[in-house]
């Protein structure tokens, strides 16, 4: 027992290293999310048709632009590990913070599991093309998660520098495919006739339903603020890296939709496991196939890598505050990473990667993300009310408040309905989980938490208290 107590106390002395710049923030955000262009987004085409997929892409882009604007303002002020968790702790209260921490851990761990599943699926597809169908995917899933966890264990700078490189390659692969197809490199021409012949196979409800997987284009961009405590200049780097990230993703998402929708029948695209790689297969170009295979593999690895980074920071932050057992709040004495949190989350990711279908894992991740975006709406309003602009200095002030908040709330409500169309049971099960977990925290766990120590920002007393 004394060991655990001293370990927790030791975290105050050994701090995370401040080594990251704006490019790392960009790499963390885009690295987690770019995989959304390589897999998963295309289920939105399956849920509503080609046009619905494009509308979902842009509407989800609007939702995430609101998220990035709100997040940039709050995070540039609340620069602490845990990102939205630290925001909730200072602005709404401990129970909300506990829930936000769980949203983050669940969203990122499930996304990590989805990435590992895709790595296995990709290798199986390529093995099948080589006449070796029926590849056992499980060793590759385990290997991917274990290798990336080890990389995270060894240090954040190496981890995110690795992400920077492989994310850039994956992004260049999308641009190369787009440009090559535009210049006639494809053996099969682009065909958008389904836009006129079968524009909305499910009618308008299909557009709403497609928003469910439209979120997958950008899910995780808010992860940039997880590294707030390891960024050299949070007030500058976090808004810059986040906004640059969402712009990158909007461009990549639109190009992805264009190329994939033009090169594949929407019925196939709507259920494809690796759509960009499949688009490269349709072009008939061996070079593009290799490039998009590498791009898909790198995008999934970069995403899983960023997810391990973010989920472990959230778990670490909650443990450091004793919201969870303080044993997990330790920092490695040599590598200065939250190593116990990193190791603990590995088997959880494996349980889901090896035992659950991809769409279920994706939906679980999306739902946790969606709950987090809903939190951001009232969190932003409370932040401005408790500390008006003239009361504390922000690194970044987002324009048009409260318009982004209102738009975000409307889009979140629509997204809940979209998830409900087909995945209502999971949504209800998850809400029950968060309600039970909240009651557990409030009535059992919170007694172990020091009250005043939770407020660490050098801010004045909030208005109204």
């Amino acid at each position, binding site marked *: 027992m004394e060991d655990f107590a001293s370990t927790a106390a030791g975290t105050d002395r050994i701090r995370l290293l401040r080594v990251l710049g704006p490019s790392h923030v960009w790499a963390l955000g885009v690295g987690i999310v770019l995989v959304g262009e390589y897999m998963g987004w295309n289920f939105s085409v399956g849920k509503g048709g080609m046009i619905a997929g494009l509308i979902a892409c842009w509407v989800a882009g609007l939702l995430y632009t609101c998220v990035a604007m709100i997040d940039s303002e709050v995070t540039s002020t609340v620069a602490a590990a845990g990102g939205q968790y630290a925001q909730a702790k200072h602005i709404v209260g401990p129970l909300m913070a506990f829930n936000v921490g769980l949203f983050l851990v669940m969203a990122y761990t499930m996304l990590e599991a989805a990435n590992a599943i895709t790595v296995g699926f990709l290798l199986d597809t390529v093995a099948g093309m080589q006449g070796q169908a029926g590849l056992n995917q499980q060793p590759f899933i385990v290997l991917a998660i274990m290798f990336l966890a080890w990389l995270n264990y060894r240090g954040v700078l190496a981890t995110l520098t690795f992400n920077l490189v492989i994310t850039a390659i994956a992004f260049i692969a999308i641009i190369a495919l787009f440009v090559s197809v535009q210049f006639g490199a494809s053996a099969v021409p682009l065909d958008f006739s389904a836009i006129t012949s079968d524009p909305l196979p499910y009618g308008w409800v299909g557009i709403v339903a497609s928003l469910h997987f439209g979120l997958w284009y950008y899910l995780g961009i808010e992860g940039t603020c997880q590294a707030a405590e390891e960024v050299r200049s949070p007030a500058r780097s976090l808004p810059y890296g986040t906004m640059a990230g969402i712009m990158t993703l909007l461009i990549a998402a639109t190009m992805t939709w264009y190329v994939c929708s033009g090169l594949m*029948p929407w019925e196939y695209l709507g259920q494809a496991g690796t759509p960009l790689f499949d688009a490269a297969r349709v072009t008939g170009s061996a070079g593009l196939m290799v490039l998009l295979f590498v791009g898909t593999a790198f995008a999934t690895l970069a995403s899983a890598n960023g997810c391990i980074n973010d989920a472990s920071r959230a778990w670490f932050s909650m443990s450091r505050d004793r919201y969870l057992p303080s044993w997990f709040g330790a920092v490695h004495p040599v590598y200065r990473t939250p190593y116990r949190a990193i190791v603990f989350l590995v088997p959880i990711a494996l349980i889901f990667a090896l035992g659950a279908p991809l769409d279920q894992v994706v939906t679980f991740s999306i739902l946790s993300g969606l709950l987090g975006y809903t939190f951001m709406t009232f969190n932003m309003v409370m932040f401005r009310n408790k500390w008006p602009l003239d009361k504390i200095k922000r690194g970044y002030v987002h324009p048009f408040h409260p318009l982004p908040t209102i738009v975000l709330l409307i889009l979140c409500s629509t997204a809940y309905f979209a998830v409900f169309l087909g995945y209502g049971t999971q*949504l209800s099960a998850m809400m029950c989980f968060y309600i039970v977990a909240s009651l557990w925290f409030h009535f059992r766990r919170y007694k172990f938490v020091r009250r*005043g120590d939770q407020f660490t920002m050098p801010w004045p007393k909030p208005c109204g208290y």
Partner: protein
Amino acid sequence: MAYEPPKQSLAGQIFDVITLLVLTIGALYIPLYLGLAGAAKVPSPIANPTWEALGQNATEQQQWAALGVTDPAAANEIITARFDYSFSWSALIVMAVLVIGYFVMVVRLSDREYREVIEERFGTKRR
């Protein structure tokens, strides 16, 4: 005087982690085990399928071929499968109540805890 939390035993810490793990895994796996999860497409394959009957033009046929599907019968189920978006209004109301009720509960209980934090950090209970 500032609140001094009790020290938690190792067994207590392990118990808390297991509780969370059981809740987490249960939330995803129980719907799966009960067969209530997911919205699978329902295929409506047509008899004697041809590419034309399946609504695929010449370019789309080339695309299918490039993807390794040259027989329309192999694409029959993929092309004809559709989601069913019919839903029950009562289920929608239950979901809305759960989501809204959850956030209301969390914000209210959080505010109660937050007042203690602020009182200790800024008020008379400051250490």
